[in-house]
């Protein structure tokens, strides 16, 4: 398994300090925002949340390898990717609140997407977005664009037929795509050991004739470097790569799950000790690029900024009921126009 940062923060390859500090900031913001979204759900303000705590390095590291014109096909647990993409926090919060400022107008729940940032909204069913991502990547190739697609999915997705058909297609037609399998050890309650009989999910790439690589998903530098190589390869027209980022979901599958029913506390504790944010911080401290004072300040600022943003977002009014009848037809048929009028009188 590819690793650059040791758990103690020693590095085999020392990256540019500015890049590392920027990644560190995004990981912290993603962590704080994730905890806030959990809280908002518990307060009954948002419908559901799929927490990303513990997976920040996999998301941030791989997203930093992208150019700004590259496309993201995420899973529903990709908050760190959105933060790394510099999506405004208010957009993400409004999305979750499904209010009038929600870029998706409450059309879906719990998932974020916006064409402005070239992020395609994630599907709820497992793996169904992989064929779409491959098709999209082939369209980029067909149009002779130098853009690349990055596609995130979990370990559970690898058992789906969609995964197989899509990766075979991508291999045969050399689609400009990077597959990132965020192996967080559980597909809801099913552990990886019950998911597949192979040791590493990256070996599945052999079946499709392209490279597969397993990286330490809690090592942001390894994730970044592996993804960067894969993105560059895809851009050169040399086809796809499958990256398995081996990590752990510290929280529940979603706010509607109780993980204590299927895993031990000791296991969770073991992975908490491998926290990706702590690891990068140790490295920064070791290189003298960061101090504990600065660190404390960063966490405080993140907490403050996000709390204030949420307060602001909550001032947005809810979507009007008639919004449910919009956005399907360019020219709505008469019965929908009538229904919309009826709905607007409900207020």
């Amino acid at each position: 398994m590819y690793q650059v940062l040791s758990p103690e923060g020693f590095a085999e390859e020392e990256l540019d300090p500015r890049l590392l500090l920027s990644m560190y900031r995004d990981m912290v913001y993603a962590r704080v925002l994730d905890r806030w979204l959990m809280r908002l759900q518990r307060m009954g303000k948002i419908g559901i949340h799929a927490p990303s705590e513990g997976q920040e390095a996999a998301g941030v590291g791989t997203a930093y390898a992208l150019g700004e014109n590259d496309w993201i096909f995420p899973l529903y647990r990709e908050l760190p990717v959105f933060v790394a993409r510099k999506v405004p926090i208010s957009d993400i919060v409004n999305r979750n609140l499904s209010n009038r400022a929600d870029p998706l107008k409450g059309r879906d729940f719990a998932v974020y997407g916006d064409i402005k940032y070239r992020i395609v909204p994630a599907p709820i069913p497992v793996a169904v977005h992989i064929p779409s991502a491959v098709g999209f990547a082939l369209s980029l190739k067909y149009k002779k664009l130098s853009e690349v697609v990055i596609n995130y999915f979990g370990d559970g997705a690898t058992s789906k037929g969609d995964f197989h058909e899509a990766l075979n297609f991508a291999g045969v037609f050399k689609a400009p795509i990077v597959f990132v399998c965020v192996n967080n050890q559980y597909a809801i309650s099913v552990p990886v050991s019950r998911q597949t009989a192979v040791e590493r999910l990256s070996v599945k790439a052999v079946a499709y004739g392209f490279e597969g690589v397993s990286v330490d998903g809690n090592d942001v530098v390894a994730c970044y470097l592996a993804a960067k190589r894969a993105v560059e390869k895809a851009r050169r027209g040399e086809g796809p790569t499958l990256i398995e980022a081996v990590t752990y979901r510290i929280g529940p599958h979603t706010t509607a799950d109780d993980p204590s029913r299927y895993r031990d506390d000791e296991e969770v504790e073991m992975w908490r000790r491998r926290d990706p944010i702590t690891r990068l911080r140790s490295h920064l401290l070791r290189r003298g690029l960061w101090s504990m004072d600065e660190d404390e300040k960063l966490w405080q600022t993140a907490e403050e900024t996000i709390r204030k943003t949420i307060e602001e977002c909550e001032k947005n009014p809810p979507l009007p009921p008639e919004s449910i009848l919009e956005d399907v037809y360019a020219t709505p048929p008469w019965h929908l126009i009538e229904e919309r009028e009826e709905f607007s009188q409900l207020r």
Partner: protein
Amino acid sequence: MLREQFSREKLLKMLRKMIEIRLFEERVERLYREGKIIGPTHLYFGQEAVAVGVIEALDKDDVVISTYRGHGHGVARGVPMKAILGEILGRAVGTCKGLGGSMHAPISVEHNIPLATAIVGSGLPIAVGVGLAFKYRERRNVATVFFGDGAVNTGAFHEALNLAAVWKLPVLFVCENNLYAMYTSLKNVLAAESIAARASSYGIPSYVAFGNDVLEVYETTSKALEKIRDQSGPAFIECRTYRQKGHGGYDFGTWYRAKEEIEEWMRRDPINMLTERMKAKGFITDEERKKIEEEVAAELDKVVEEVLSSPFYDYEKLPSLVYANPP
């Protein structure tokens, strides 16, 4: 290298089976061209060694899941040729009372062929289910499933192999790689090194056999079966072979394949290959082979005549096939 010393008797049995399949298919092809067969038919010419090699190695109680190119599987398994042909011609004597047609012709519960499916790749998850039943009932039997090279790119293939591996089920996956999925050459749809290599991405042991060499197929299957019966989970065999004719009866297989390629594979005809080997051992002479062919031909001509003069199923009785107690 062959491990087993094959007796003359065993080799003669396999040769006869292969000849039966070949001559059976010759008659099916003729009947198809004469317009006597309703619906499509997919012929087994050239792949006889796969059906015979695999099925000879199985136990009587092992299950076989077949495909739409399954006449050969049925004949190899000993399903009466009259019932198979009856099915192809839609007669009541058919294996499915003539209601299924050519693509379901080998089905015979009595011979442990519960299914022959017309949908590419759809037999694999069903075989996994059969394997699960065997494991659940603690039986030492194996579910064997045949499929073509086109099936390996379907989602059903992927889900089936993964589940069989995770649950360590007694399933033998046999890919009859005849190099073409209808008119699509394998090299246009597979970027991996080989089909067999693909099994490694599920943690399944895989074997490659030259599918025109019945003894190699038999030995490879026996090896794979040993592994499966040791409770170590599924196994995968890729048999490299060639269909000497087109995809279906309506296709001559010529417009998308090079003449040289076809000729090269005709030179490696499975029946001739076995005959040559047997001759080298002094097990058979040309006259003896000719005699077998004449015997089989005479038997088949009788079968064709009987089936052609037998009645279609009485469609009035159809509801009784759906409900035990018709409403």
